[in-house]
């Protein structure tokens, strides 16, 4: 029994010492909550590396408010319970002034209310569920919402002179059906003729759907689904001699599409968060810096982690104080932020970004298929 008390007492002392040292340290702390183990670890590592790069670059320039920035990185394992623990610990024990993350919608929707309750600003780099930023004024994000992809795709088709367009969507899939609605509404607003054609989960035969769109005369086909289906759709369209402009979503942005669809994917466009072939200096500088620091090419999510962290640091500078309340106000007031994932970024009243959507296209380069930056389109 006595030893038990001793352990408790010792722990208490150690904890107090830790807390005191944290407060006394002359740094500004930013927390990162991301999955670093488990199946989603590659995403979490991407976000983490982006954040590390942003912080190191800021520190090299003298930090912010004359202090160095310290990054506290914790693993939430992409698990909601773990995310709640991690975010609470970042706020209560590590005394961070802001949180970057969590990475996926399931964990971000747990982290958001905690940050809101403690009054600590949170920026999720990557979680797309609409409800996440609706919990209050302390929760923000830097990735566009799914809706943006639908209206950007229509704007892009319109800009390409397309008058008749179709959307091929998956029945019973919230993502696909949501984007279908956006597409139908937006084409109507722009005075384009459009039809929606459905397919079901697990379908491998798209003949009837494709011939229906061909018969309608659709010159552009919007495809809000993942690359597995895109492989079948593009190959079957090519086989039947139907060559519309396919515009996919971020789910198409995968090397597997090029490998499996081959020539059939040539010329297809898609909306995405970030393109390494974007020639803006800030993007190319980011790519060079990232590879110099980590020795490998960044995944797309790293760019979002990088932008989220830079936005947080910049807001701390504008706030002129490390008071979370002032930082929150500064983040909310963001205007014309120059991000690698789209520029200029401002945040709307919900804390969601208003930014360009990147359009990339499959091209043939040196005899091989590759993605190439086409345009940045306002949704």
């Amino acid at each position, binding site marked *: 029994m006595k030893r038990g008390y001793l352990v408790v007492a010792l722990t208490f002392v150690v904890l107090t010492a830790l807390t005191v040292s944290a407060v006394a340290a002359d740094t500004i702390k930013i927390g990162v909550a991301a999955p670093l183990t488990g199946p989603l670890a590659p995403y979490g590592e991407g976000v983490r590396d982006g954040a590390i790069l942003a912080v190191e670059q800021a520190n090299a320039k003298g930090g912010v408010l004359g202090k160095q920035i310290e990054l506290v990185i914790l693993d939430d394992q992409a698990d909601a319970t773990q995310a709640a623990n991690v975010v609470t610990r970042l706020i209560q024990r590590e005394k961070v002034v802001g949180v970057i993350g969590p990475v996926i919608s399931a964990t971000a929707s747990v982290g958001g209310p905690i940050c809101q309750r403690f009054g600590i600003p949170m920026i999720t780099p990557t979680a797309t569920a609409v409800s996440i930023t609706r919990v209050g004024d302390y929760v923000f994000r830097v990735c566009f919402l799914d809706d943006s992809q639908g209206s950007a795709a229509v704007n892009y088709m319109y800009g390409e002179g397309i008058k008749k367009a179709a959307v091929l969507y998956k*029945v019973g899939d919230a993502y696909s059906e949501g984007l279908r609605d956006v597409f139908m509404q937006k084409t109507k607003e722009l005075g384009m003729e459009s039809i929606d*054609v*459905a*397919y*079901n989960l*697990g*379908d*491998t*035969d798209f*003949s*009837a*759907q494709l*011939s*229906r769109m061909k*018969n309608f005369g659709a010159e552009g086909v919007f495809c809000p689904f993942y690359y*597995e289906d895109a*492989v*079948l759709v593009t*190959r*079957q369209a090519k*086989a*039947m*001699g139907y060559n519309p402009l396919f515009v996919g979503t971020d789910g198409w942005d995968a090397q597997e599409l090029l490998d*499996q*669809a*081959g020539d059939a994917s040539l010329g297809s466009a898609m909306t995405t968060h970030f393109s390494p072939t974007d020639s803006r200096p800030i993007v190319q500088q980011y790519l060079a810096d990232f590879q110099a620091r980590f020795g490998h090419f960044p995944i797309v999510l790293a760019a979002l982690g990088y932008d989220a962290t830079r936005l947080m640091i910049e807001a701390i500078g504008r706030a002129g104080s490390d008071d979370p309340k002032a930082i929150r106000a500064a983040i909310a007031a963001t205007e014309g932020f120059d991000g690698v994932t789209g520029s200029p970024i401002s945040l709307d009243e919900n804390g969601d970004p208003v930014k360009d959507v990147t359009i990339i296209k499959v091209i043939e380069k040196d005899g091989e298929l590759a993605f190439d930056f086409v345009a940045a389109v306002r949704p």
Partner: protein
Amino acid sequence: MSRVVASLLLCAVCILLALLRKYRTHVVSNPALKYSYYPALILLAALGINYLLTALGANKVYTFQQAVYGLSLGSVYALIALGYTMVYGIIRLINFAHGDIYMVGAYAGYYAVTVMHLPFVPALVIAMVASSVLGVLIERIAYKPLRNSPRITLLITAIGMSLLLENVGQKLFTSTPRTYPTIFKASYEVFGVSVDQSRIIIFAVTVLLMIGLQYFVNYTKPGMAMRALSQDRDAARLMGINVDRVISVTFAVGSALAGAAGILVGIVYPQIKPTMGIMPGLKAFVAAVIGGIGIIPGAMLGGMIIGVSENFVTAYISSSWRDAIAFGLLILILLVKPSGLLGKSVREKV
């Protein structure tokens, strides 16, 4: 209006002539009509439909295009349905693992084409042999020991077998979908309807296999033994038929056809995954029931009906309705003619 009625009547007469048992037995016994009767009826019905479409002012190219797509999809269902129907005919078991044998055939064909770089025909043979071996193994290991158990035991074993194959498949082949390379590229135009080479092949191979199967069942010794077994197992045994061997042969042939369907699906709809057998398996089961379970031409007819109707529903209504209509057909057939389109109504002996 009168033209619409006339063409509808023509089609209806064709369908009735094709389905009425009285005429069919008469036709089959008449050597002059035996091989020309059904093709002639199909041609006549097609003319009727063509006339109807003209009368309605429909987009004919579009309609016939859907028919082409439907027939190639229907071929796949028909090939799978044959395995269901044959096994059911012999041991009264709905072999739910059959859709997964089709999946294994698709993977065998995939590896033959991509890893061994074989051309289409040897790959087709490999897929058929691999499926057939698997089919016989399943029968020997899982079904044979239960030969005298209640039918429900066998059915539950079949469902378990199906789940086992799907999950072992995910472990073995991983759940990432694989993509067949393009084997047949050419495409032809017939009266404005585009017909891909791969679709011609899927249809032609199916028809050839059907003819081969008809020959096997009707004119060879094992085929005769199968028919004997389906009529009365005990009587067949008393006549000196090796029941176990005939059952194995049935599984081998049925599974080989499913394996062929697997590779044919790969050349037209080039994506395969370990769970690909579930839905086509169910649809093929529906096809077998619609045609009349246990009846071989019925499986082909049912498969084609499902394939074509699915394509028309997707093309003219919406694919949301597609599966509802396929299974709705099943319920309708069970209500109106429980023995299936080509089945004879046998009264249960008491």
